[in-house]
C-alpha cells in the first residue's frame, strides 16, 4: 500500500470515479482551469475537458440546482463548494429539492456536495464553519465526514456511487497534515458505518473528522494515567450508526462526545439523547460533550485556539467521567 495525504485521497477518488463513469462531472467555482481553491481538481480540466469540469458562475444555489437537475436525467454530479460556509447559499436547493425528491415523487438525486469545512486555519467566521449541523435535521440527506486518507477516498467513492444526495464534509485542516496507507485497488467505505479508531475499556470517545486526531492525542495522554479510551470515528453523521454507538456504550459505560461544531443543537446533542433514550441502564455517568462554544468562529489566533476543542479538553472530560 502507498501512503497519500487526505487531499490526494479526495483527488484520487474523484479522478478514478471520473475515469470509471462517464456520468460523473464536477461543478463549482474555479474548479476548472485553476484547479480549485485547494487544488483538489488540479489537472482535471486538462484531462476531462470543460464539459466535465465546469467552472460555474458564482452562484451556489444555481449550480447546486443544476447538479440536481443533471442527476435526475442520469448524471452523477459532484459539486464543490469553494468553502463549506458558502453552502448556506444553496440551502434551499439541498433541503427542499435534493433531500425531498425521492420521498415526494420517487426521483433519486445522486449528487455529492463537497464541503471543505472546519477551522484551525485562521479563516474567521466565513471560512471555518462546521456545516454538518445545518443539515443534520434534514431527512433525505446523507452526511459523511472522513478523518483519514483511507476513508476520504473510500467514502467519496461510496458517495459518488450512492443514489442519494450526500454532503461530503472534508476537513481543510487535514488536507496536507495527515497521511495514511491506501490500497492500490478500487475500494469503498460504506456509508452509515462507523469504525473503532482505537480500542479501549474505560471510556468511549465518540467523534468524527479532525477531532478523531485530537481524540487520539488525548487517548495517548490518558494512557500514561492508566485510563484506556475507546475511540469511535463515526465517518457517517447522517444517518448515524446507532449500532456502533450503542455497542461502545455497553462496553465502557462512559461516553464523551467530541466535535468541532458548536455545542447547542449539534450532532453531540443527538448522540447524547440517543444514548439516554436507548442505553440509560448501561451508563455509569452522564454523557459529556466537548464542543466549540456557541459563538461564530473567532479570527485571532489565541481566540481561535480556545474555540477549537483540544486534547486537554478531552482529557479533562474523560477524567471527570472516570471519577464519577
Amino acid at each position, binding site marked *: 500500500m502507498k501512503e497519500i495525504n487526505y487531499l490526494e485521497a479526495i483527488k484520487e477518488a474523484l479522478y478514478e470515479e471520473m475515469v470509471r463513469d462517464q456520468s460523473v462531472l464536477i461543478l463549482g467555482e474555479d474548479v476548472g482551469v485553476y484547479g480549485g481553491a485547494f487544488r483538489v481538481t488540479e489537472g482535471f480540466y486538462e484531462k476531462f475537458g470543460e464539459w466535465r469540469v465546469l467552472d460555474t*458562475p458564482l452562484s451556489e*444555489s444555481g*449550480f447546486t440546482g443544476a447538479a*440536481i*437537475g443533471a442527476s*435526475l436525467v442520469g448524471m452523477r454530479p459532484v459539486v464543490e463548494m469553494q468553502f463549506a460556509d458558502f453552502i448556506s447559499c444553496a440551502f434551499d436547493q439541498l433541503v*427542499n429539492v435534493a433531500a425531498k425528491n425521492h420521498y*415526494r*415523487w420517487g426521483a433519486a438525486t445522486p449528487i455529492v456536495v463537497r464541503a471543505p469545512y472546519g477551522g484551525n486555519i485562521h479563516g474567521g467566521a466565513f471560512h471555518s464553519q462546521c456545516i454538518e449541523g445545518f443539515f443534520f435535521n434534514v431527512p433525505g440527506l446523507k452526511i459523511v465526514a472522513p478523518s483519514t486518507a483511507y476513508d476520504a477516498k473510500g467514502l467519496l467513492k461510496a458517495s459518488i456511487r450512492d443514489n442519494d444526495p450526500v454532503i461530503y464534509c472534508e476537513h481543510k485542516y487535514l488536507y496536507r497534515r495527515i497521511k495514511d496507507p491506501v490500497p492500490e485497488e478500487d475500494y469503498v467505505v460504506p456509508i452509515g458505518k462507523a469504525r473503532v479508531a482505537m480500542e479501549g475499556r474505560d471510556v468511549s470517545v465518540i467523534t468524527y473528522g479532525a477531532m478523531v486526531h485530537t481524540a487520539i492525542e488525548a487517548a495517548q495522554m490518558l494512557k500514561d494515567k492508566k485510563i484506556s479510551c475507546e475511540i469511535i470515528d463515526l465517518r457517517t453523521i447522517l444517518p448515524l450508526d446507532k449500532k456502533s454507538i450503542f455497542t461502545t456504550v455497553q462496553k465502557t459505560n462512559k461516553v464523551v462526545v467530541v466535535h468541532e461544531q458548536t455545542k447547542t443543537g449539534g450532532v453531540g446533542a443527538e448522540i447524547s439523547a440517543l444514548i439516554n433514550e436507548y442505553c440509560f441502564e448501561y451508563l455509569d455517568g452522564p454523557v459529556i460533550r466537548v464542543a466549540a462554544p456557541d459563538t461564530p468562529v473567532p479570527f485571532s489566533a489565541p481566540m481561535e485556539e480556545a474555540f477549537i476543542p483540544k486534547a486537554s479538553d478531552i482529557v479533562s472530560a474523560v477524567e471527570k467521567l472516570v471519577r464519577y
Partner: protein
Amino acid sequence: MMDIQRDDLLQMYYYLKLTRKFEERITSLYHQGRILGGAWTSNGTEAVSVGYAFALEKNDIAASYFRDMGAFIIRGISVKRIMAQYLGKKTGVSGGKEGNVHIGDLNYGVFGFPSHLADNYPVGAGAALAFKIRGEKRVVAACTGDGGTSRGDFHEAMNFASVRKLPIVFFCNNNQYAYSTPLHLQMAVKNIADRALAYGMPNKIVDGNNVVDVYTAAKEAYEFARNGGGPTFIECKTMRMHGHSEHDSAKYVPRELLEEWRKKDPITNMETYLRENNIVKKEELDSIDTRIKNEIDEAEEFAETSPYPSPEDALEDVYATPVEE
C-alpha cells in the same frame, strides 16, 4: 402563423378545455370539503402550459410550476392520478406523500414541482446541461410565475444557461399578480422579458391567452435550443382569473381588469378561431366536451374509490438507497 395541423389544433383545444374543466371540478370538490388542503388552478392562463407542453417532444423535460396543469396532463400524467393526489389517496401521483399541484413523474419527463418558486429553473438548467454534455437533442421547458422571477434562483439559472448555451427554454406565466402583489411592486422593469437582457439571452413576449402563439413561440425556441442556439426566455402575458388559490377571493384585483381579460379568455378565443376559420364543426366540439366530462367523472370516481395510504407508508422512500441499520 406557423402551419399547424388541424389535428394539433383540435388536440390543443381538447387539452385547454380538459385543464379548465378538470380544475373546475377540483374547485367544486374543494368547496364541498372533499379534497385535502387547498386548490390552485391555472384559470385564465391555461394556454401557457398547454402551449409550451404541446410543443415538446416525448423525450424532453418539463420543469414546471404549480399553474401548469395543462403541462402535467399533456406529458401523460393521468387526471385520475392527479385527482387521487388531490384527495391524498395511495393511487395519487405521489402515493399520498404529496398533495395537489406538487406533481412530478420522471416516466413522463416531468420534474416535481417544489413549492419554492423558481427552484425548478436551475434544476431544469441542469437537465439541459446533461443533454448538452451527452450530445442528445433533447430540450427542457422550465416555467415559473411573474413573482418567481424576482428570486435568486431565477437569475442564477438564466445566467448559467446563457453562459453555457444550454438547450432550455424559460417560460414565465405573467398573470399580473403574485398572490396579492401586483407587478409594479415586484419589479421596476416594464416587461419581465427585459430581465433576460441582463443575461444576453434572446427573449420574446407572447400573448399568453393565445395557445397558438405560445405553441409557435415555444416550438421555435425549442428548435433553436436543439440546434445548439442556447436558451430563450418567453414571457407569456396573461391574467389570473381566480384568487391565488380557492380560499382567496382576490378582492385586491380591480373588477374592470378582470372584465377586460374575460373578453380574452383563452378557451373562448380558441373556439372562436376554430369556428370562424371553419376548422371544426360545432358537433365535433360538443363531442370533445362530452369526452372531457366523462374523463373527469371517471377521475373523480377513481379517486374517491381509491384507498388511502397507511400511516406506515409515510416512513418509506426517504432514501433511494436506505442505509442498513
